[in-house]
C-alpha cells in the first residue's frame, strides 16, 4: 500500500468566532420561510451543521442540537450537510384569525 503524503497539522491558536446579535435589521429570524426541525434520536453529534451554518445559530449540546430561531433564516444548509438526515425543513406557518 502506498504511504499517504497527507500531513495533519495541529494548530492551537484560536481565532474569533462570530455570533448573531441584534443589528440594524432587528431579529432576522422573521425572514425565514422554512423552519429546521431536529430529530435528536437520529443525531450523532458530528458538529457538521454547527460548522457549516452561515449564521452560526446552531449549538451542539449534550442533550441535542439547539437552534436559535431568533436569527435562523432557514437556508437549509444544515439539513443538506447532515449525513444522518436528522434535520427536516418544515414550511413556516402563521396563524391568521378571521373574525
Amino acid at each position, binding site marked *: 500500500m502506498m504511504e499517504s*503524503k*497527507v*500531513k495533519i*497539522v495541529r*494548530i492551537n*491558536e484560536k*481565532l474569533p468566532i*462570530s455570533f*448573531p*446579535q441584534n*443589528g*440594524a*435589521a432587528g431579529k432576522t429570524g422573521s425572514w425565514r420561510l422554512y423552519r429546521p426541525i431536529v430529530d435528536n434520536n437520529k443525531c450523532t453529534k458530528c458538529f457538521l451543521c454547527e*460548522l*457549516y451554518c*452561515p449564521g452560526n445559530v446552531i449549538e451542539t449540546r449534550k442533550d441535542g442540537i439547539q437552534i436559535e430561531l431568533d436569527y435562523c433564516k432557514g*437556508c*437549509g*444548509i444544515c*439539513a*443538506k*450537510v447532515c449525513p444522518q438526515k436528522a434535520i427536516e*425543513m418544515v414550511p413556516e406557518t402563521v396563524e391568521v384569525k378571521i373574525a
Partner: protein
Amino acid sequence: MVVPASCTSVVVGTSPKTSIGMPVVHVPFASAASVASGIRESLLINNKGDIHVIAWAGDGGTADIGMASLSGAAERNSDIIYIMYDNEAYMNTGIQRSSSTPVGAWTTTTPIKGKLEQKKDVAKIMIAHGVPYVATASIAYPHDFYNKLSRALKIRGFRFIQLHSPCPVGWRFDDSQTVDVAKAAVETGMWILYEYKDGKLEISNPSKYLIEHNSFKPIEEYLKIQGRFSKISEDLLKELYKERERNIEWLKKAV
C-alpha cells in the same frame, strides 16, 4: 477591518447599529488596500502593533476596481491581511460580469452566450508580486480556511487569501446547496486549494490527492447544479477544460 462597497458592507450596516463587534471602516471600491495599509501604519506609530488589520473585499473590488491599490500595497509589503471573497460577479449590484467570472457563465451583462473571456487569476498575480503569504480557500472546507488564516496571523507583511464563496442568487441554485456547489468546484478542479509561503508553493490537502492521482470529476458535474451554466456551448466547455489543464500543469511545475 476595512470593507469596500460589497455585500459585506450591507451585512455590517451603518455606525450606531453595526452587526459586527469590531471597528469597521467603510471605504470606496478602489481604496480598500491603501486605507488598510494606512491604518496599519498609524497603529504601528501609536504602539498598537498587536492589532491586526484585515481588508475584506469582493472580487469586483479586488480584481477590477481595487487592483491598482492592491498591487501598490503588495509592492510596499504593507502589514495587512487581504481577504478576497470570490463569488465571480458583481452580485450586490445585480449580477454584472467581473473579470473574475469564469468562461461560459451567464450574467446580466453577458446574457446570450455567457462570458467569453477567461477568469482572472488574482492569486497568481499576488504570487508574482513576491508577497510573504498567498493562499486560496473554499467555504466548503472551513478547517482548511481556519488553518490558513491562523497561519497568516503569524506572518508579517502582506498576506492574501482568496476565498471561493458561491452566491445562490447569482449562480442560480437553491440556498441549501451552497456547500455542495463549493465542494463540487474543488472536486472538479475548477477551484484548486494551495498556499504559497516562504517562496514555496504547497497544494492543500483537499486538492492534493486529486492532483496526485489525477482523479478530478468531469466539469459537467459542477456546471449542471448551477443555472448560470445552463446555456453553455460546446466550445466554451472545451475552453473550461483547457483552462483547468493549464492551471493544473502550472501548479505541478511550481510545486
